[in-house]
């Protein structure tokens, strides 16, 4: 394995971390549209909080996908073709939630507004759930042939661990969304979000325990790299506890950052467990390794130069756009 290959493996991890940190609260907000907000005014505000941002956040996924294609074509080809139906459902979910905000605002009847609000809620939930399911089923090992093709059965994708993984990721996203609401709204919405997260954190912790047990039973993470796996899991639990404390003590920023970091911990856990592989085969001989899966040194080198020169500029205006909209919102009836 060369340094460039390692760098790109890490960069893909960083891009997915960015995606889950940012789109994580987008998904949470999307779910909150119907699960949390009580009336139309509240839903206006809830959607408004991510209005200028959701599209940019989704670009992290597109960039992660593109970077994976560019730096590890064998990984991209194997994962994306092997998870055909799962990714197809994710795409459908992303389509519905993506257009829902724009379309909802232009509907005339309550029935149609309801329709697009549910499209946002169900779409966001399904996308988060399916991403969780995909990554947790992938780390258990999949039936790879020697060409890197996955010939999976139903239980390859849907099993106890992958369902728990799906639920855990969607719950994490939902709470992360609530924490974002606490940060971006004031008055009743903010208080209710805080109340909800206080209730949800014990549930999440219980879920994390189940997740760890199943991780132990179904993956080789603990047998291959016990120390790092344990440290990341401890970090995950600590971030969850910090976020919980933030909800108790009304520290909105602390909760938001901590819930984002717990999502990042999950990504780190997965990438740490995969290393030095990118796909784990049920038959270990067929596992796809970083050193065999990458593009040529020329392409990796080129990509590195381009990324290092473009990404800093992107980050500057990306963060600036959040700063422009850094203002709390409240629903009009409270303002009146």
């Amino acid at each position: 394995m060369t340094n460039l290959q390692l760098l790109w493996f890490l960069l893909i991890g960083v891009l997915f971390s960015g995606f889950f940190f940012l789109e994580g609260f987008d998904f949470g907000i999307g779910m909150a549209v119907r699960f949390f907000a009580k009336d139309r005014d509240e839903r206006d505000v809830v959607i408004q909080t991510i209005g200028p941002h959701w599209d940019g956040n989704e670009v992290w996924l597109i960039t992660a996908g593109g970077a994976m294609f560019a730096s590890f074509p064998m990984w991209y080809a194997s994962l994306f073709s092997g998870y055909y139906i799962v990714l197809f459902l994710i795409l459908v979910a992303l389509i519905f939630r993506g257009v829902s905000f724009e379309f909802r605002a232009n509907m005339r009847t309550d029935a149609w507004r309801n329709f697009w609000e549910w499209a946002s809620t169900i779409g966001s939930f399904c996308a988060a759930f399916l991403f969780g399911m995909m990554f947790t089923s992938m780390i258990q090992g999949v039936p790879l042939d020697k060409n890197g093709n996955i010939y999976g059965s139903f239980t390859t994708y849907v099993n106890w661990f992958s369902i728990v993984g799906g639920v855990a990721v969607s719950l994490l996203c939902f709470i992360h969304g609530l924490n974002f609401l606490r940060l971006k709204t004031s008055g009743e919405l903010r208080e209710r979000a805080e109340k909800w997260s206080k209730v949800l954190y014990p549930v999440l912790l219980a879920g994390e325990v189940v997740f760890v047990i199943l991780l132990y039973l179904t993956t080789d993470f603990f047998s291959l790299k016990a120390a790092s796996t344990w440290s990341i899991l401890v970090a995950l639990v600590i971030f969850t506890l910090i976020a919980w404390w933030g909800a108790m003590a009304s520290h909105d920023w602390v909760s938001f950052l901590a819930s984002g970091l717990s999502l990042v911990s999950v990504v780190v856990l997965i990438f740490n467990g995969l290393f030095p592989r990118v796909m784990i085969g049920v038959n270990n001989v067929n596992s796809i390794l970083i050193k065999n899966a990458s593009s040529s040194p020329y392409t990796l080198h080129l990509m590195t130069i381009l990324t290092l020169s473009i990404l800093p500029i992107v980050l500057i205006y990306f963060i600036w756009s959040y700063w422009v909209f850094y203002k709390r919102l409240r629903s009009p009836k409270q303002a009146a």
Partner: protein
Amino acid sequence: MLNIGLSMLGLSRFQFAMTTVFHFFFVPFSIGLAFIVAIMETVYVVKKDETYKTMAKFWGKIFLFSFAVGVVTGIIQEFQFGMNWSEYSRFMGDIFGAPLAIEALAAFFLESTFIGLWMFTWDRFNKVVHCLFIWLTAFGSTLSALWILAANSFMQNPVGYVINAQTHRVNMTSFGAVVSNRQLWNEFPHVIFGAFLTAAFVVAGCSAWRLLKKDHEDFYRKSMKVTLIVGLCACLGSVWSGDTQTRYLINNQPMKFAAMEGLSKNSTNKGEWAIAAGFKNHQKTWSVEVPYVLNILGHHSLNGTFKGQNQVNKELKAKYNKNDQTRNYYVPTRTLFWSFRIMAISAGLFGLVAIIGLWFNRKKSQTIMRQRWFLYLMGLMVWLPFIVNTCGWFVTEFGRYPWVVYGLLTIADAVSPTSTVASLLFTNIVYFLIFASLGAVMVILSHRVLKQGPDSVTTDGYSSKPEKTQDVDPYEMGAAHND
């Protein structure tokens, strides 16, 4: 024509065609409209005429629908290379991945961030800065076209690569060659001019419909003027870039060219150009021809000849058939022939309508309001750019058959071996239903925005109750500040 049996390959091809065609309804429209809105806002900033501000906001609203649908269907585009064409992804990853990743990094972040800023910060920034946001969005979307076409151009005309002896996959040797591919610099201007043309004639056509109802005369006449100027320039640009691109094909992809011109046998020195023709098994059965036009178009001269499909097929067989002597290199002749004619004839129509429209719509003249037939014609032409764009891709992509990467990888070898007919059938049906509904919602919403008229646009953002809020920025609208 499309050969769709219920085979894995056929269904995968159908899926790619469907998702790409649908996505490409919105892409050129969004790119073009971003520029047109940017021009309108610039005129507002320079002339300080409020009509142009309303114009930018009003057409900007339709732009936002198109942008949203373009974004969500674009993710399908990126994912389906891996999902449906995993062998292609393995083969091409070294080349394709780089432009795709740069597209995301350099272009998508730019357009998505600044469109968000543009949408929600009317009156919160200095006029010039706000105008800059839409220019950056337009610039970002153009950049995205450049990078994805860089990848497509490689597939049409591979350059700057070697075949890795061990893996039998392409390895990039020169990024400079990939980016300076002549195919790219023929294709990219044509796509961008096509995008301007699309947006221009949609906006002009929508304006024509409103003028027929005598609605907001000043507003729609000014909109029409701006867009017809853009449309005329774009039309000339399309013809010019179309010409250079087509002539480039003569040597580079001779089969594509022969099929576009419906040449089965080699052409004679008289250069007969077929206006219409019938084909059976790639052989011309009848045709209506005009002498010399083919030579004028292809050689820019009265003399010369072109290879027909039969001759090209023989040459390609000699070049590429090493193991399999039965493989032929004919492309779907009828599709290419007619697609090319639709493009060429439409270009003439667009140019004519733009010139007449600008004349009728000249200042201090009421001609445009009296010539209702002309407004009807323009109104109907709203649909034409979308058909023409699709024809363009039909020529480009069908004309490469049987290759997915010209001369290197066939379509049949590119498909995911793990796909199944059942899953592909399912996803094709679902995609079709989703696209049909999204398309319908788009049309209904755009129509509704048009009917509401320019007075309604003072609202933006995602509020469910636009009618209650007038002329405030979205933060005061959906929610009050909390200071």
